[in-house]
């Protein structure tokens, strides 16, 4: 440790003050107070509030909508993450072949990552337009559909619209992360396996995958947590419909809070969501820990 910093503890402490203040006031306090709100009937539209015990929780657990929303969120986020992971892995493997022009390819693929969600939302509405959308046109032309599908009017199709938007946006992240991991795999190890006559598939399965598996899983988990927060596509493209089919947990909570102005119910959903996240975070910590222990060995 730095001798100066040890000699000046107060100056050192002051380095942390802005971050801790901002974090406490803008993140920790709103989180704790949000959980407290779950036990009240608070609303910005009414003065004062009353404690209602577990009523809000009882209400959402009995509400069919809540379970439907939870299930839909899981379906949408799990499939988006999985598909993006597989496609990102495929692209990363392709880029890792050392073809000429790889850098340009990486840069171009990466463009998707910087397109703002709102632009994707507007664009996806147009791509999947019933009458004049290019997706319908191509699918009918290719003979996949007999006639144009009304994407936003059918629950399963609307989910596909949202999932495809999510996948398109996070593929670049998956690709870059996995590529970074692939480039960390020792070439000597690969060459040795080649000399021993291992085929491409064998090398992938027995050498490369075991080495990058944790990075892939952690990257996927990270994206899944982020997608749970994502609200632009469901709100703008489908408005959560038809009949909740694309209402994710974040949109559901937002609607409870800022359309119905029921902060109590919204707090309860947020609290349950946080509880689920604690489990996910535990899983994450466990995996990071396992990876660290493996690296030590």
């Amino acid at each position, binding site marked *: *440790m*730095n*001798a*100066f*910093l040890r000699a000046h503890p107060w*100056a*050192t402490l002051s*380095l*942390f003050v*802005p*971050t801790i203040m*901002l974090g406490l006031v*803008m*993140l920790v306090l*709103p989180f704790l107070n949000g959980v407290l*709100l779950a036990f009240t009937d608070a609303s*910005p539209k009414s003065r004062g509030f009353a404690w209602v015990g577990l009523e809000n929780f009882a209400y959402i657990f009995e509400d069919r909508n809540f379970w439907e929303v939870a299930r839909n969120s899981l379906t949408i986020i799990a499939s988006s993450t999985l598909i993006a992971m597989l496609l990102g892995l495929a692209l990363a493997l*392709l880029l890792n*072949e050392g*073809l000429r022009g790889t850098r340009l390819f990486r840069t*171009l*693929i*990466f463009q*998707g*990552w*910087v*397109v703002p*969600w*709102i*632009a*994707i*939302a507007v*664009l996806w*509405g147009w*791509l999947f*337009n019933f*009458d*004049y959308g*290019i997706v319908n046109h191509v699918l009918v032309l290719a003979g996949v559909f007999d006639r144009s599908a009304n994407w936003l009017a059918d629950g399963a199709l609307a989910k596909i619209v949202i999932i495809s938007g999510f996948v398109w946006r996070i*593929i670049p992240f998956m690709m870059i992360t996995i590529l*970074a991991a692939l480039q960390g795999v020792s070439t000597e190890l690969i060459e040795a396996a080649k000399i021993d006559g291992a085929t491409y598939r064998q090398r992938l399965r027995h050498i490369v995958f075991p080495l990058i598996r944790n*990075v892939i899983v*952690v990257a996927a988990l990270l994206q899944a*947590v*982020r997608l749970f*927060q994502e*609200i*632009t596509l469901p*709100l*703008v493209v489908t*408005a959560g419909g038809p009949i909740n089919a694309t209402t994710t947990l974040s949109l559901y909570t*937002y609607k409870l*809070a*800022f359309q119905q102005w029921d*902060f109590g119910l*919204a707090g309860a959903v*947020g*609290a349950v969501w*946080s509880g689920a996240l604690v489990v996910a975070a535990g899983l994450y910590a466990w995996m*990071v820990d396992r990876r660290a222990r493996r690296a030590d060995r």
Partner: protein
Amino acid sequence: MSAIAIGSPMSRALRGAGLYALVLLSLCVMLFPIGWMIVTSFKLPDEIFVRPPTIYPHAPTLQGYGVAFSGTIMMALANSLIIAAGAAAIATTAGSLCAYGVSRSRFAGRTAFMTLLLATLGLPIPLLMLTLYLMFSWSGILNTHLCLILSHAAITLPVVVWMLKDFFDALPPDVEEAAYIDGASLYTCFWRIVVPMTTPGLAAAGIFVFVTSWNEFIFGLAFTTSSSVRPLPAMISLLFLGEFQYRWGDAMAVAVVVTIPVMALFVFFQRYFIQGITAGAVKS
């Protein structure tokens, strides 16, 4: 791929061609939406509502861009710029001080502190918004740039600390120690020596915050009521769900306009973007 992995020059050439074909195919699929957005933005309504769709605008028009560069959208763009720049300044300043502290001292609970920071990224945003809304409303800063600047700075701060800690860790402490021995104070040393040596890291962090704020949608929608404050994504969503409905050419032009600033940043600072992205996932 595997069937013709090693072998004659002929099969190797075939494999190369196959790989390039795959590369081209994935490029087409990934870039198509962006291309289609641009193509549509130059079409007149007559050409938008036709079947089959035309591949390129036969009668290119700037009509959509006339709408995109109108007063409402430009005001929202200015709001977004102010908010993103403000958030980047606050988060980078606070985050760099904190990251420097974490990097250079060895207090107990250092790892726990960093893990806690990372954990805040998972806190449900809509849950936080309840109290933020009440707080902003009580303190009278609801519907101001300030409340969005603070919100955006807060949600990006944990990542900024993580990114910058890596940069400070990589910086040899010898120079700072020499400065301390010469009698420099902590903050003099920080601003005069540490900051100039880590400008790439600070740029990466600043860009990360700027882009995140530029993209952020739901705070901008919930915490603003007037168009003199409302940032671009929230403004676009209101227009798109309202008067822009079915005006696809205009909507696409606006989508292009909201994308251009971040894409331009990306083209110039690509390296920093990628650092920001892999910071949390590959290391940690």
